[in-house]
C-alpha cells in the first residue's frame, strides 16, 4: 500500500452486491489504492482482498485460487469471463463488482 511520489497508487473501486458485502464488513463500496509499482491481476487482487478486507469465513468467498461457485465477478459491468478472468490486468479506476447469486423467491 505504500508508494513513493514517482509511483502513484493504482486506485480502483470494489463493489459488493446481493449479500457478498456481508463477507467484507458489510461495506458495499470501497475505493482502494494498490501499490502502483507492480502489475495487478484479478488473481493478485483476490489474494489482497483475502489478506486485507475479508472478514468472514474465507471459503465463502475463495475456493482454491479463484472465487467460489455462485459469485459473479464483473469488471466495469462486464462478466470477467469475457475479459480473461484471473489474468485480467487491472487499470486505474476500474470497477470490480462481486455479486452473490440469489436463489430465493
Amino acid at each position, binding site marked *: 500500500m505504500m508508494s513513493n511520489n514517482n509511483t502513484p497508487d493504482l486506485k480502483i473501486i470494489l463493489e459488493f*452486491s446481493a*449479500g457478498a458485502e456481508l463477507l467484507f464488513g458489510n461495506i458495499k463500496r470501497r475505493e482502494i489504492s494498490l501499490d502502483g509499482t507492480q502489475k495487478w491481476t484479478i488473481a493478485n487482487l483476490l489474494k489482497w482482498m483475502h489478506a486485507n478486507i475479508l472478514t468472514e469465513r474465507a471459503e465463502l468467498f475463495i475456493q482454491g485460487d479463484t472465487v467460489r*461457485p*455462485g459469485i*459473479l465477478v464483473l469488471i466495469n459491468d462486464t*462478466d470477467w469471463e*469475457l475479459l480473461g478472468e484471473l489474468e485480467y490486468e487491472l487499470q486505474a479506476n476500474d470497477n470490480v463488482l462481486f455479486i452473490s447469486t*440469489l*436463489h*430465493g423467491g
Partner: protein
Amino acid sequence: MIAATADSFEIEKAKLCRKIAELQAALNAKDQKLRELQLAADNSLAEGEVQFAPRDQYTELSNDDIARYSRQLILTDFGVSGQLKLKNSAVLIVGLGGLGCPAAQYLASAGCGNLGLVDYDEVEPSNLHRQTLHTVSRCGISKAESARIALLELNPHCRIICYSNLLNSFNAMQIIPAYDVILDCSDNVATRYLLNDACSILQKPLVSGSALKMDGQLTVYCYGENGPCYRCIYPVPPPPEAVTNCGDGGVLGAVTGTIGALQAMEAIKVIVGLGEVLAGRMLIFDGSSCQFRNIKIRGKRPNCHVCSSEPLITGLIDYELFCGMNANDKDNALQLLEPEQRINVLDYHKLATEKKSHLLLDVRPPAEFEICQLPGAVNVPLAQILDDSYIQRFAQQLESKEYPIFVVCRRGNDSQIAVQHMKTRFPDHSVRDLEDGMHAWTKLVDQNFPIY
C-alpha cells in the same frame, strides 16, 4: 455363574443386534417402496392434466378483448398482432410465491391465453406479505389452486392448469413441452438447475428471477442464438452453506414484486417479439439504494454440459444429488450434538420455573431477538459466539464448569452450532442447547409465544 451370565448376555445381545439389523433392512426396503410409489403417483399426471386440450388458434380479437386490452392494444409495436400472440401463448410458472404471484397476475391480466401453475406447497400466513394472490381464507390450500382462483377472478378468459406436485426430473419433461415460455419463480438451487436443463434440452426460453432481503436478480436463459443457459453462467452449484433462503434471510415483498413483474414483462416481450429481451445480460436490483444495474454476462459456454453442441447431459439427472440440497426452501433439522449436550424445552422450563441459577444465551440476530424472547434470555448473536467475543462478556459465568449455560435460537440449528463451538473451548462445561428452539417452546410450553 457370572461367566455363564456374561455369555448368555453376549448371545442375547448378538441376537438382538441381528434382529434390529433385519428390521432395519425391512424398514429400508419399505421406505424405498414408498418412495417409488410416491414417485410413480407424482409422475402419473393424467394426459388431460399435462396438456391443454387442443389449443384454438385465435385469428381475431373479440369485442370483449378489445375493450379489456385497449390500453396495451394502442401501444406501438404491440397492437392486435401482439395481443393475438399473447392470447395464443402458453406460459408455465414454476413457483407461486413472491415472484410467481405478481408474474402470474400480470400475465393473466395482459391476456396470456394459457397459464400452467406449478407449486407443491400450501399457503401459509407467513407467505401473505409478498405472495399477493393468496388470501387469509385460502391458507392451507395448494398455492397453485389458490393462485388459480385469484387469477380467474381477474381474467376469466385465461385457461389455467394447476400442477400441485413438486417438479421433478420425470414430470418436467411431460409438462414443459406444452408451453412456449417458462418462468423460474422457484426458491431453491436444485429446481433452478432442473428447469435450466429441461428448458435447454427442449429449447424453451427461461425467464429466471430471484430475490432475497432487499436484492433481486433477473435474466433470460436459453434465448437466441448465443444466449447462455444457467449452467453457462454457473457450471458448478454453490456450496450449500453459502445459500440463504427467504425464511432465514428475510425478503421484502415489494422486492419480489418488482422482480416478478419484470419476469412477466420479459415473458411478454419474448412472446410478442417486442423490444430487446434480457438475454446475455443480467439485471441486478439493489432495493436498499434503489439502483438497477444492467450487466453484460457471457454468451454460451463452448463446453457447456447441457447447451453446447456436444452436451454431456442429454436427459435430466438427480438435481438434489447434484446440488447437495433439497428441492425446496424448507430448513432441515441439523444433528450436530450428542443427546446429553441438548435439553428439551419442557425440562428447561421446569428448571427455569424452579428459579435455578443459569445463563440463557439467545444466538439469533438482534432483529429477531426484538420480535420475541424467552424470559431472562441474553442476546448474543451467533457471530459473537463464533469469534469468541462472548467469552469476555460472560467471564464470570464461565468460571465454574458446573454453572449451567443454555443456548437457544429459533429452530434449534444455530444453537447447536453455537454449543459445538463453545465446547471446543470449554469441553467440560455444562453447555446445552434447547432442542428445536423457540418453535418447540410455542408447541410444548407456551402456545401464546409468537412463532415466525
